[in-house]
Protein backbone atom coordinates (compact mmCIF):
# COMPACT_ATOMS: atom_id res chain seq x y z
CA UNK A 1 0.00 0.00 0.00
CA UNK A 2 2.84 2.33 0.95
CA UNK A 3 4.53 1.68 -2.41
CA UNK A 4 1.28 2.30 -4.24
CA UNK A 5 0.85 5.69 -2.53
CA UNK A 6 4.49 6.50 -3.30
CA UNK A 7 3.97 5.50 -6.95
CA UNK A 8 0.81 7.61 -7.13
CA UNK A 9 2.57 10.63 -5.61
CA UNK A 10 5.49 10.33 -8.03
CA UNK A 11 3.10 9.89 -10.96
CA UNK A 12 1.35 13.09 -9.87
CA UNK A 13 4.69 14.93 -9.74
CA UNK A 14 5.50 13.63 -13.23
CA UNK A 15 2.13 14.72 -14.59
CA UNK A 16 2.51 18.16 -13.03
CA UNK A 17 6.01 18.47 -14.51
CA UNK A 18 4.73 17.44 -17.94
CA UNK A 19 1.81 19.85 -17.74
CA UNK A 20 4.15 22.64 -16.64
CA UNK A 21 6.55 21.83 -19.46
CA UNK A 22 3.76 21.85 -22.06
CA UNK A 23 2.14 25.06 -20.80
CA UNK A 24 5.41 26.88 -20.14
CA UNK A 25 6.97 25.57 -23.37
CA UNK A 26 3.99 26.73 -25.41
CA UNK A 27 3.02 29.99 -23.72
CA UNK A 28 6.22 31.06 -22.03
CA UNK A 29 9.32 29.70 -23.78
CA UNK A 30 11.64 31.90 -21.71
CA UNK A 31 10.08 30.74 -18.45
CA UNK A 32 10.62 27.19 -19.62
CA UNK A 33 14.21 28.06 -20.48
CA UNK A 34 14.64 29.43 -16.93
CA UNK A 35 13.32 26.21 -15.38
CA UNK A 36 15.55 24.02 -17.51
CA UNK A 37 18.52 26.40 -17.32
CA UNK A 38 18.43 26.79 -13.53
CA UNK A 39 18.22 23.02 -13.08
CA UNK A 40 21.17 22.61 -15.43
CA UNK A 41 23.26 25.29 -13.68
CA UNK A 42 22.64 23.70 -10.26
CA UNK A 43 23.40 20.20 -11.59
CA UNK A 44 26.65 21.38 -13.21
CA UNK A 45 27.70 23.02 -9.92
CA UNK A 46 26.83 19.85 -7.96
CA UNK A 47 28.70 17.65 -10.46
CA UNK A 48 31.74 19.89 -10.20
CA UNK A 49 31.80 19.36 -6.41
CA UNK A 50 31.41 15.59 -6.79
CA UNK A 51 34.28 15.67 -9.29
CA UNK A 52 36.32 17.62 -6.73
CA UNK A 53 35.81 14.83 -4.20
CA UNK A 54 36.87 12.21 -6.77
CA UNK A 55 39.99 14.22 -7.64
CA UNK A 56 40.84 14.60 -3.95
CA UNK A 57 40.37 10.84 -3.36
CA UNK A 58 42.56 10.00 -6.38
CA UNK A 59 45.24 12.44 -5.31
CA UNK A 60 45.20 10.98 -1.75
CA UNK A 61 45.49 7.42 -3.14
CA UNK A 62 48.41 8.42 -5.42
CA UNK A 63 50.12 10.14 -2.50
CA UNK A 64 49.76 6.99 -0.34
CA UNK A 65 51.14 4.76 -3.13
CA UNK A 66 54.21 6.93 -3.69
CA UNK A 67 54.96 7.20 0.03
CA UNK A 68 54.83 3.38 0.53
Amino acid at each position, binding site marked *: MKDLVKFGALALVLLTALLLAVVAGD*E*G*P*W*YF*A*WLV*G*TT*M*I*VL*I*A*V*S*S*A*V*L*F*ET*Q*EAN*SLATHKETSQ
Partner: protein
Amino acid sequence: MIDPTVVNLSRLQFALTALYHFQFVPLTLGLSFILAAMETVYVITGKPIYKDMTLFWGKLFGINFAIGVATGLTMEFEFGTNWSMYSHFVGDVFGTPLAIEGLMAFFMESTFVGLMFFGWDRLSRPAHLAVTYLVALASNLSALWILIANGFMQDPAGARFDPVTMRMQFKSFGALVFSPDAQAKFVHTSIAGYVSGAMFVMGISAYYLLRKQHREFAARSFRIAALFGLVSTLAVVTLGDALGRMDDLVQPAKLAAMEGLWHSARGPSAPWKLFALPDDEKQRDAASIGIPYVLTPLVAHEWKTTIPGIYALERAAKARTVSGIKAIIALKSFGASHDPAALAAFRKHENDMGYGFLAQRYAPDQDLSAITPALLPAVLAKTARASIPNVFVEFWSFRIMVGLGVAFIVVFAFGAYYSLKNELEKHPLVMKAAMLAIPLPILACEFGWVTAENGRQPWTVYGWLPTFQSASSHGIGYMIFSLAGFVLLYSLFIAAELYLMFKYARLGPGEHTAQPKPLPVPVRPVFGQPGYAHKPWQ
Protein backbone atom coordinates in the same frame (compact mmCIF):
# COMPACT_ATOMS: atom_id res chain seq x y z
CA MET B 1 -0.42 72.63 -13.28
CA ILE B 2 2.16 69.87 -12.93
CA ASP B 3 5.45 71.03 -11.44
CA PRO B 4 8.37 69.44 -13.36
CA THR B 5 10.64 69.82 -10.29
CA VAL B 6 8.30 67.63 -8.20
CA VAL B 7 8.24 65.05 -11.01
CA ASN B 8 12.05 65.05 -11.23
CA LEU B 9 12.42 64.73 -7.45
CA SER B 10 9.92 61.84 -7.44
CA ARG B 11 11.96 60.17 -10.19
CA LEU B 12 15.18 60.71 -8.29
CA GLN B 13 13.68 59.28 -5.11
CA PHE B 14 12.37 56.17 -6.84
CA ALA B 15 15.58 55.68 -8.81
CA LEU B 16 17.68 55.93 -5.64
CA THR B 17 15.50 53.55 -3.62
CA ALA B 18 15.42 51.07 -6.53
CA LEU B 19 19.20 51.23 -7.01
CA TYR B 20 19.79 50.87 -3.26
CA HIS B 21 17.39 47.92 -3.08
CA PHE B 22 18.95 46.21 -6.06
CA GLN B 23 22.31 46.05 -4.35
CA PHE B 24 20.81 43.27 -2.21
CA VAL B 25 18.45 41.49 -4.59
CA PRO B 26 20.97 39.83 -6.97
CA LEU B 27 22.83 38.20 -4.07
CA THR B 28 19.58 36.78 -2.69
CA LEU B 29 18.59 35.39 -6.09
CA GLY B 30 21.96 33.80 -6.72
CA LEU B 31 23.10 32.73 -3.26
CA SER B 32 19.84 30.87 -2.61
CA PHE B 33 20.48 28.47 -5.51
CA ILE B 34 24.19 28.16 -4.66
CA LEU B 35 23.17 27.14 -1.11
CA ALA B 36 20.80 24.59 -2.63
CA ALA B 37 23.63 23.21 -4.79
CA MET B 38 25.97 22.94 -1.77
CA GLU B 39 23.36 21.23 0.34
CA THR B 40 22.57 18.83 -2.51
CA VAL B 41 26.23 17.72 -2.44
CA TYR B 42 25.94 17.32 1.34
CA VAL B 43 22.90 15.08 0.97
CA ILE B 44 24.51 13.06 -1.86
CA THR B 45 27.97 12.59 -0.37
CA GLY B 46 27.24 12.90 3.36
CA LYS B 47 30.41 14.97 3.80
CA PRO B 48 29.89 17.44 6.66
CA ILE B 49 32.06 20.08 5.03
CA TYR B 50 29.23 20.76 2.58
CA LYS B 51 26.91 21.32 5.53
CA ASP B 52 29.50 23.73 6.96
CA MET B 53 29.59 25.47 3.60
CA THR B 54 25.80 25.75 3.45
CA LEU B 55 25.72 27.10 7.00
CA PHE B 56 28.45 29.67 6.45
CA TRP B 57 27.25 31.01 3.11
CA GLY B 58 23.72 30.75 4.49
CA LYS B 59 24.69 33.15 7.29
CA LEU B 60 25.86 35.73 4.73
CA PHE B 61 22.71 35.05 2.70
CA GLY B 62 20.63 35.71 5.83
CA ILE B 63 22.23 39.12 6.46
CA ASN B 64 21.68 40.14 2.87
CA PHE B 65 18.13 38.73 2.79
CA ALA B 66 16.99 40.65 5.89
CA ILE B 67 18.32 44.01 4.70
CA GLY B 68 17.09 43.37 1.15
CA VAL B 69 13.54 42.82 2.38
CA ALA B 70 13.64 46.00 4.48
CA THR B 71 14.79 48.13 1.53
CA GLY B 72 12.25 46.63 -0.87
CA LEU B 73 9.11 47.20 1.19
CA THR B 74 9.19 50.97 0.90
CA MET B 75 9.21 50.88 -2.89
CA GLU B 76 5.75 49.37 -3.12
CA PHE B 77 4.41 52.21 -0.94
CA GLU B 78 6.11 54.81 -3.10
CA PHE B 79 3.76 53.96 -5.95
CA GLY B 80 0.92 55.22 -3.77
CA THR B 81 2.64 58.17 -2.14
CA ASN B 82 4.71 59.64 -4.99
CA TRP B 83 3.08 58.14 -8.09
CA SER B 84 -0.62 58.41 -7.33
CA MET B 85 -1.58 59.40 -10.89
CA TYR B 86 0.24 56.38 -12.19
CA SER B 87 -1.39 54.16 -9.56
CA HIS B 88 -4.82 55.49 -10.52
CA PHE B 89 -4.14 54.95 -14.22
CA VAL B 90 -2.80 51.37 -14.07
CA GLY B 91 -3.50 50.26 -10.49
CA ASP B 92 -5.91 47.48 -11.54
CA VAL B 93 -3.30 45.87 -13.77
CA PHE B 94 -0.06 46.82 -12.05
CA GLY B 95 -1.34 46.04 -8.54
CA THR B 96 -2.19 42.44 -9.43
CA PRO B 97 1.34 41.04 -9.83
CA LEU B 98 2.48 43.03 -6.80
CA ALA B 99 -0.33 41.52 -4.71
CA ILE B 100 0.48 38.02 -5.96
CA GLU B 101 4.13 38.61 -5.12
CA GLY B 102 3.17 39.47 -1.54
CA LEU B 103 0.66 36.67 -1.07
CA MET B 104 2.50 33.90 -2.87
CA ALA B 105 6.23 34.41 -3.14
CA PHE B 106 6.81 36.58 -0.08
CA PHE B 107 4.80 34.39 2.27
CA MET B 108 6.45 31.27 0.87
CA GLU B 109 9.91 32.82 1.20
CA SER B 110 9.33 34.06 4.76
CA THR B 111 7.91 30.72 5.90
CA PHE B 112 10.65 28.53 4.49
CA VAL B 113 13.57 30.83 5.29
CA GLY B 114 12.86 30.24 9.01
CA LEU B 115 12.84 26.48 8.49
CA MET B 116 16.05 26.74 6.50
CA PHE B 117 17.92 28.57 9.28
CA PHE B 118 16.49 26.81 12.32
CA GLY B 119 15.44 23.43 10.97
CA TRP B 120 18.82 21.72 10.63
CA ASP B 121 18.35 19.55 13.74
CA ARG B 122 14.62 19.24 13.36
CA LEU B 123 14.22 18.08 9.77
CA SER B 124 15.62 15.09 7.95
CA ARG B 125 18.37 15.84 5.42
CA PRO B 126 16.11 15.47 2.33
CA ALA B 127 13.36 17.53 3.98
CA HIS B 128 15.80 20.33 4.81
CA LEU B 129 17.16 20.20 1.27
CA ALA B 130 13.62 20.54 -0.07
CA VAL B 131 13.15 23.59 2.18
CA THR B 132 16.35 25.19 0.85
CA TYR B 133 15.16 24.66 -2.73
CA LEU B 134 11.80 26.19 -1.82
CA VAL B 135 13.54 29.28 -0.40
CA ALA B 136 15.50 29.62 -3.66
CA LEU B 137 12.39 29.12 -5.76
CA ALA B 138 10.37 31.59 -3.68
CA SER B 139 13.11 34.26 -3.89
CA ASN B 140 13.09 33.97 -7.65
CA LEU B 141 9.28 33.84 -7.82
CA SER B 142 9.27 37.10 -5.90
CA ALA B 143 11.46 38.59 -8.62
CA LEU B 144 9.20 37.05 -11.26
CA TRP B 145 6.08 38.96 -10.18
CA ILE B 146 7.96 42.23 -9.79
CA LEU B 147 9.41 41.82 -13.26
CA ILE B 148 6.00 40.97 -14.71
CA ALA B 149 4.82 44.30 -13.26
CA ASN B 150 7.87 46.02 -14.74
CA GLY B 151 7.33 44.19 -18.05
CA PHE B 152 3.88 45.83 -18.20
CA MET B 153 5.50 49.27 -17.87
CA GLN B 154 7.85 48.43 -20.75
CA ASP B 155 5.25 46.79 -22.99
CA PRO B 156 1.68 47.19 -21.69
CA ALA B 157 0.25 43.81 -22.70
CA GLY B 158 -3.07 42.48 -21.41
CA ALA B 159 -4.79 45.82 -20.75
CA ARG B 160 -6.90 48.42 -22.52
CA PHE B 161 -7.73 52.05 -21.67
CA ASP B 162 -11.32 52.59 -20.59
CA PRO B 163 -12.51 56.16 -21.36
CA VAL B 164 -15.38 55.85 -18.85
CA THR B 165 -13.25 55.04 -15.81
CA MET B 166 -10.16 56.84 -17.23
CA ARG B 167 -8.01 53.84 -16.25
CA MET B 168 -6.27 50.93 -17.89
CA GLN B 169 -8.46 47.85 -17.39
CA PHE B 170 -7.49 44.20 -17.48
CA LYS B 171 -8.10 42.46 -20.77
CA SER B 172 -6.07 39.29 -20.25
CA PHE B 173 -4.16 38.06 -17.21
CA GLY B 174 -2.42 35.48 -19.41
CA ALA B 175 -1.17 38.17 -21.79
CA LEU B 176 0.26 40.07 -18.80
CA VAL B 177 2.04 37.05 -17.30
CA PHE B 178 3.29 35.63 -20.59
CA SER B 179 4.26 38.98 -22.12
CA PRO B 180 7.49 38.34 -24.07
CA ASP B 181 9.08 41.41 -22.48
CA ALA B 182 8.29 40.20 -18.95
CA GLN B 183 9.62 36.74 -19.76
CA ALA B 184 12.90 37.95 -21.24
CA LYS B 185 13.33 40.46 -18.41
CA PHE B 186 12.77 37.85 -15.72
CA VAL B 187 15.23 35.28 -17.02
CA HIS B 188 17.88 37.93 -17.71
CA THR B 189 17.53 39.51 -14.25
CA SER B 190 17.26 36.26 -12.32
CA ILE B 191 20.35 34.78 -13.94
CA ALA B 192 22.25 38.05 -13.49
CA GLY B 193 21.57 37.40 -9.80
CA TYR B 194 23.17 33.95 -10.14
CA VAL B 195 26.28 35.63 -11.57
CA SER B 196 26.39 38.03 -8.60
CA GLY B 197 26.00 35.21 -6.08
CA ALA B 198 28.66 33.11 -7.78
CA MET B 199 31.17 35.98 -7.90
CA PHE B 200 30.51 36.70 -4.23
CA VAL B 201 31.25 33.10 -3.18
CA MET B 202 34.18 32.76 -5.57
CA GLY B 203 35.76 36.06 -4.48
CA ILE B 204 35.54 35.38 -0.74
CA SER B 205 36.83 31.83 -1.28
CA ALA B 206 39.74 33.29 -3.26
CA TYR B 207 40.44 35.61 -0.30
CA TYR B 208 40.75 32.59 2.02
CA LEU B 209 42.94 30.70 -0.45
CA LEU B 210 45.25 33.70 -0.89
CA ARG B 211 45.58 33.94 2.89
CA LYS B 212 46.04 30.15 3.14
CA GLN B 213 43.02 29.91 5.44
CA HIS B 214 40.22 27.30 5.39
CA ARG B 215 41.72 25.62 2.31
CA GLU B 216 39.40 22.59 2.28
CA PHE B 217 36.40 24.83 2.63
CA ALA B 218 37.48 27.54 0.20
CA ALA B 219 38.66 25.24 -2.62
CA ARG B 220 35.28 23.46 -2.66
CA SER B 221 33.31 26.69 -2.47
CA PHE B 222 35.46 28.17 -5.25
CA ARG B 223 34.84 25.13 -7.49
CA ILE B 224 31.06 25.23 -7.08
CA ALA B 225 30.89 29.00 -7.56
CA ALA B 226 33.19 29.04 -10.59
CA LEU B 227 31.16 26.47 -12.53
CA PHE B 228 27.84 27.96 -11.38
CA GLY B 229 29.05 31.41 -12.42
CA LEU B 230 30.52 30.41 -15.76
CA VAL B 231 27.33 28.77 -17.04
CA SER B 232 25.22 31.61 -15.59
CA THR B 233 27.33 34.30 -17.27
CA LEU B 234 27.07 32.58 -20.65
CA ALA B 235 23.30 32.34 -20.12
CA VAL B 236 22.93 35.96 -19.03
CA VAL B 237 24.72 37.22 -22.15
CA THR B 238 22.50 35.08 -24.41
CA LEU B 239 19.36 36.20 -22.59
CA GLY B 240 20.49 39.83 -22.74
CA ASP B 241 20.63 39.47 -26.50
CA ALA B 242 17.02 38.19 -26.43
CA LEU B 243 15.99 41.21 -24.38
CA GLY B 244 17.75 43.52 -26.86
CA ARG B 245 15.77 41.91 -29.67
CA MET B 246 12.60 42.56 -27.68
CA ASP B 247 13.53 46.23 -27.37
CA ASP B 248 14.03 46.37 -31.14
CA LEU B 249 10.44 45.16 -31.57
CA VAL B 250 8.57 47.11 -28.87
CA GLN B 251 10.80 50.01 -27.76
CA PRO B 252 12.64 51.31 -30.84
CA ALA B 253 13.58 54.61 -29.15
CA LYS B 254 15.32 52.72 -26.33
CA LEU B 255 17.26 50.62 -28.81
CA ALA B 256 18.25 53.67 -30.90
CA ALA B 257 19.52 55.39 -27.75
CA MET B 258 21.36 52.25 -26.58
CA GLU B 259 23.19 52.07 -29.90
CA GLY B 260 23.58 55.83 -30.28
CA LEU B 261 21.78 55.71 -33.64
CA TRP B 262 20.97 59.23 -34.79
CA HIS B 263 20.41 58.12 -38.40
CA SER B 264 18.59 54.92 -39.41
CA ALA B 265 20.92 51.98 -40.02
CA ARG B 266 20.36 50.38 -43.41
CA GLY B 267 21.88 47.24 -44.83
CA PRO B 268 24.40 44.79 -43.52
CA SER B 269 27.37 47.17 -43.38
CA ALA B 270 25.89 49.46 -40.67
CA PRO B 271 28.56 49.97 -38.00
CA TRP B 272 28.10 49.07 -34.35
CA LYS B 273 29.49 51.86 -32.19
CA LEU B 274 32.16 50.58 -29.89
CA PHE B 275 32.84 54.06 -28.54
CA ALA B 276 30.94 57.33 -28.90
CA LEU B 277 30.33 60.60 -27.12
CA PRO B 278 26.67 61.30 -27.89
CA ASP B 279 25.64 64.94 -27.51
CA ASP B 280 21.94 65.03 -26.65
CA GLU B 281 21.73 68.80 -27.03
CA LYS B 282 23.08 68.87 -30.61
CA GLN B 283 21.76 65.36 -31.42
CA ARG B 284 25.01 64.08 -32.88
CA ASP B 285 28.18 62.33 -31.71
CA ALA B 286 31.11 64.47 -30.62
CA ALA B 287 33.28 61.44 -31.53
CA SER B 288 32.65 57.80 -32.39
CA ILE B 289 34.38 54.57 -33.39
CA GLY B 290 32.26 51.92 -35.13
CA ILE B 291 32.76 48.35 -36.33
CA PRO B 292 31.04 47.73 -39.70
CA TYR B 293 28.85 44.69 -40.40
CA VAL B 294 28.04 44.14 -36.71
CA LEU B 295 24.99 46.28 -35.83
CA THR B 296 22.25 44.76 -38.03
CA PRO B 297 22.95 41.06 -37.33
CA LEU B 298 23.50 41.86 -33.65
CA VAL B 299 20.21 43.69 -33.20
CA ALA B 300 17.87 42.16 -35.79
CA HIS B 301 19.51 38.71 -36.13
CA GLU B 302 19.48 39.14 -39.92
CA TRP B 303 21.23 41.28 -42.56
CA LYS B 304 18.63 43.40 -44.35
CA THR B 305 16.47 45.01 -41.66
CA THR B 306 16.51 48.79 -41.33
CA ILE B 307 16.94 49.90 -37.73
CA PRO B 308 15.21 53.24 -37.20
CA GLY B 309 17.38 56.07 -35.91
CA ILE B 310 16.44 58.91 -33.59
CA TYR B 311 15.66 61.43 -36.37
CA ALA B 312 13.23 58.97 -38.01
CA LEU B 313 11.63 58.16 -34.66
CA GLU B 314 11.16 61.87 -33.93
CA ARG B 315 9.43 62.32 -37.29
CA ALA B 316 7.11 59.41 -36.45
CA ALA B 317 6.49 60.90 -32.98
CA LYS B 318 5.34 64.21 -34.54
CA ALA B 319 2.67 62.43 -36.58
CA ARG B 320 1.54 60.47 -33.52
CA THR B 321 1.42 63.66 -31.43
CA VAL B 322 -0.99 65.31 -33.88
CA SER B 323 -3.22 62.24 -33.57
CA GLY B 324 -2.71 62.08 -29.77
CA ILE B 325 -3.79 65.72 -29.30
CA LYS B 326 -7.04 64.89 -31.11
CA ALA B 327 -7.48 61.83 -28.85
CA ILE B 328 -7.11 63.84 -25.62
CA ILE B 329 -9.40 66.65 -26.79
CA ALA B 330 -12.03 64.02 -27.76
CA LEU B 331 -11.54 62.26 -24.41
CA LYS B 332 -12.14 65.47 -22.48
CA SER B 333 -15.22 66.16 -24.54
CA PHE B 334 -16.51 62.63 -23.90
CA GLY B 335 -15.81 62.99 -20.17
CA ALA B 336 -17.90 66.18 -20.03
CA SER B 337 -20.80 65.15 -22.28
CA HIS B 338 -20.69 61.36 -22.82
CA ASP B 339 -21.30 62.19 -26.46
CA PRO B 340 -20.99 59.05 -28.66
CA ALA B 341 -19.43 61.15 -31.44
CA ALA B 342 -16.65 62.23 -29.05
CA LEU B 343 -16.12 58.60 -28.07
CA ALA B 344 -15.89 57.59 -31.74
CA ALA B 345 -13.34 60.37 -32.33
CA PHE B 346 -11.33 59.17 -29.32
CA ARG B 347 -11.38 55.55 -30.48
CA LYS B 348 -10.02 56.64 -33.87
CA HIS B 349 -6.91 58.15 -32.26
CA GLU B 350 -6.79 56.04 -29.08
CA ASN B 351 -3.46 54.35 -29.80
CA ASP B 352 -1.69 57.71 -29.89
CA MET B 353 -3.28 58.99 -26.66
CA GLY B 354 0.04 58.86 -24.80
CA TYR B 355 1.62 61.32 -27.22
CA GLY B 356 -1.25 63.70 -26.55
CA PHE B 357 -0.53 63.50 -22.81
CA LEU B 358 3.15 64.05 -23.58
CA ALA B 359 2.38 67.19 -25.62
CA GLN B 360 0.42 68.65 -22.70
CA ARG B 361 3.66 69.68 -21.03
CA TYR B 362 4.48 72.02 -23.93
CA ALA B 363 0.97 73.41 -24.49
CA PRO B 364 0.06 76.89 -23.17
CA ASP B 365 -0.97 76.40 -19.51
CA GLN B 366 -0.68 72.63 -20.17
CA ASP B 367 -3.99 72.86 -22.05
CA LEU B 368 -4.03 71.12 -25.45
CA SER B 369 -7.09 73.00 -26.66
CA ALA B 370 -5.09 76.23 -26.31
CA ILE B 371 -2.58 75.19 -28.99
CA THR B 372 -3.00 77.51 -31.97
CA PRO B 373 -1.90 76.57 -35.52
CA ALA B 374 1.01 78.98 -35.08
CA LEU B 375 2.15 77.23 -31.88
CA LEU B 376 1.65 73.68 -33.17
CA PRO B 377 5.05 73.20 -34.92
CA ALA B 378 6.94 74.22 -31.76
CA VAL B 379 4.81 71.90 -29.56
CA LEU B 380 5.36 69.02 -32.01
CA ALA B 381 9.11 69.59 -32.13
CA LYS B 382 9.41 69.70 -28.32
CA THR B 383 7.20 66.63 -27.86
CA ALA B 384 9.14 64.67 -30.49
CA ARG B 385 12.41 65.57 -28.79
CA ALA B 386 10.98 64.59 -25.40
CA SER B 387 9.94 61.17 -26.77
CA ILE B 388 13.60 60.09 -26.95
CA PRO B 389 15.45 59.00 -23.79
CA ASN B 390 18.79 60.50 -22.78
CA VAL B 391 21.16 58.99 -25.35
CA PHE B 392 24.45 59.55 -23.49
CA VAL B 393 23.21 57.81 -20.33
CA GLU B 394 21.59 54.97 -22.29
CA PHE B 395 24.58 54.40 -24.58
CA TRP B 396 27.13 54.23 -21.77
CA SER B 397 25.10 52.38 -19.13
CA PHE B 398 24.44 49.67 -21.74
CA ARG B 399 28.09 49.44 -22.74
CA ILE B 400 29.35 49.31 -19.15
CA MET B 401 26.90 46.48 -18.40
CA VAL B 402 27.91 44.51 -21.51
CA GLY B 403 31.63 45.15 -20.95
CA LEU B 404 31.40 43.88 -17.38
CA GLY B 405 29.47 40.81 -18.56
CA VAL B 406 32.26 39.93 -21.00
CA ALA B 407 34.87 40.44 -18.26
CA PHE B 408 32.96 38.03 -16.00
CA ILE B 409 33.16 35.30 -18.64
CA VAL B 410 36.97 35.65 -18.57
CA VAL B 411 37.21 35.62 -14.75
CA PHE B 412 34.86 32.64 -14.37
CA ALA B 413 36.47 30.73 -17.26
CA PHE B 414 39.98 31.03 -15.80
CA GLY B 415 38.68 30.31 -12.30
CA ALA B 416 36.80 27.20 -13.46
CA TYR B 417 39.69 25.98 -15.61
CA TYR B 418 42.34 26.17 -12.87
CA SER B 419 39.94 24.87 -10.24
CA LEU B 420 39.12 21.84 -12.41
CA LYS B 421 42.85 21.23 -12.89
CA ASN B 422 43.41 21.68 -9.13
CA GLU B 423 46.03 24.32 -9.93
CA LEU B 424 44.26 27.31 -8.52
CA GLU B 425 46.83 28.08 -5.89
CA LYS B 426 49.55 28.28 -8.54
CA HIS B 427 47.72 31.24 -10.13
CA PRO B 428 47.21 33.95 -7.50
CA LEU B 429 46.37 36.47 -10.23
CA VAL B 430 43.14 34.58 -11.01
CA MET B 431 42.24 34.56 -7.31
CA LYS B 432 43.03 38.26 -6.93
CA ALA B 433 40.86 39.02 -9.99
CA ALA B 434 38.01 36.98 -8.48
CA MET B 435 38.34 38.84 -5.18
CA LEU B 436 38.40 42.28 -6.78
CA ALA B 437 35.43 41.39 -9.00
CA ILE B 438 33.05 40.72 -6.06
CA PRO B 439 31.09 44.01 -6.37
CA LEU B 440 31.20 44.19 -10.17
CA PRO B 441 28.20 41.96 -11.03
CA ILE B 442 26.06 44.07 -8.70
CA LEU B 443 27.36 47.16 -10.47
CA ALA B 444 26.49 45.53 -13.82
CA CYS B 445 22.96 44.87 -12.52
CA GLU B 446 22.64 48.52 -11.52
CA PHE B 447 23.73 49.67 -14.98
CA GLY B 448 21.30 47.14 -16.45
CA TRP B 449 18.46 48.80 -14.55
CA VAL B 450 19.63 52.25 -15.65
CA THR B 451 19.58 50.99 -19.26
CA ALA B 452 16.09 49.52 -18.84
CA GLU B 453 14.50 52.42 -16.99
CA ASN B 454 16.26 55.39 -18.59
CA GLY B 455 15.44 53.78 -21.93
CA ARG B 456 11.73 53.63 -21.00
CA GLN B 457 11.61 57.42 -20.60
CA PRO B 458 9.63 59.59 -21.11
CA TRP B 459 7.00 57.00 -20.24
CA THR B 460 5.91 55.22 -17.08
CA VAL B 461 3.68 53.00 -19.23
CA TYR B 462 5.38 52.83 -22.60
CA GLY B 463 3.46 54.79 -25.23
CA TRP B 464 0.44 55.36 -22.95
CA LEU B 465 1.30 57.42 -19.90
CA PRO B 466 4.20 59.89 -19.70
CA THR B 467 6.27 60.11 -16.52
CA PHE B 468 5.37 63.80 -16.43
CA GLN B 469 1.69 62.93 -15.86
CA SER B 470 2.31 60.14 -13.36
CA ALA B 471 3.57 61.79 -10.18
CA SER B 472 1.62 62.95 -7.13
CA SER B 473 1.07 66.66 -6.50
CA HIS B 474 3.41 67.06 -3.52
CA GLY B 475 5.26 70.22 -2.60
CA ILE B 476 9.00 70.54 -3.35
CA GLY B 477 9.81 70.81 0.38
CA TYR B 478 8.04 67.53 1.12
CA MET B 479 9.91 65.79 -1.68
CA ILE B 480 13.32 67.08 -0.55
CA PHE B 481 12.59 66.11 3.07
CA SER B 482 11.49 62.55 2.19
CA LEU B 483 14.35 62.15 -0.29
CA ALA B 484 16.89 63.14 2.36
CA GLY B 485 15.24 60.72 4.81
CA PHE B 486 15.45 57.86 2.32
CA VAL B 487 19.09 58.57 1.46
CA LEU B 488 20.02 58.64 5.14
CA LEU B 489 18.08 55.50 6.05
CA TYR B 490 19.23 53.48 3.05
CA SER B 491 22.84 54.56 3.54
CA LEU B 492 22.57 53.19 7.07
CA PHE B 493 21.25 49.92 5.65
CA ILE B 494 24.18 49.71 3.23
CA ALA B 495 26.65 50.48 6.02
CA ALA B 496 25.06 47.77 8.21
CA GLU B 497 25.20 45.25 5.37
CA LEU B 498 28.84 46.01 4.56
CA TYR B 499 29.86 45.93 8.24
CA LEU B 500 28.18 42.57 8.86
CA MET B 501 29.35 41.03 5.60
CA PHE B 502 32.97 42.04 6.18
CA LYS B 503 32.80 40.95 9.81
CA TYR B 504 31.47 37.46 9.11
CA ALA B 505 33.52 36.94 5.94
CA ARG B 506 36.71 37.81 7.88
CA LEU B 507 35.71 35.54 10.75
CA GLY B 508 35.37 32.71 8.24
CA PRO B 509 33.63 29.39 8.60
CA GLY B 510 35.43 28.27 11.78
CA GLU B 511 36.35 24.63 12.41
CA HIS B 512 35.34 22.17 9.72
CA THR B 513 36.35 18.86 8.27
CA ALA B 514 36.24 17.24 4.85
CA GLN B 515 35.77 13.76 6.31
CA PRO B 516 32.38 12.26 7.09
CA LYS B 517 31.70 11.78 10.77
CA PRO B 518 28.77 10.22 12.59
CA LEU B 519 26.21 12.73 13.69
CA PRO B 520 25.97 13.09 17.48
CA VAL B 521 22.18 12.92 17.46
CA PRO B 522 20.21 10.91 14.89
CA VAL B 523 18.27 13.21 12.61
CA ARG B 524 14.57 12.95 13.26
CA PRO B 525 11.61 15.12 12.39
CA VAL B 526 10.61 17.52 15.17
CA PHE B 527 7.36 15.67 15.82
CA GLY B 528 9.35 12.44 16.28
CA GLN B 529 11.45 13.83 19.13
CA PRO B 530 10.88 12.56 22.66
CA GLY B 531 8.43 14.60 24.59
CA TYR B 532 7.14 16.50 21.60
CA ALA B 533 3.68 14.96 21.84
CA HIS B 534 3.45 15.73 25.54
CA LYS B 535 2.76 19.35 26.28
CA PRO B 536 4.85 20.79 23.46
CA TRP B 537 3.97 24.29 24.66
CA GLN B 538 5.99 23.84 27.85
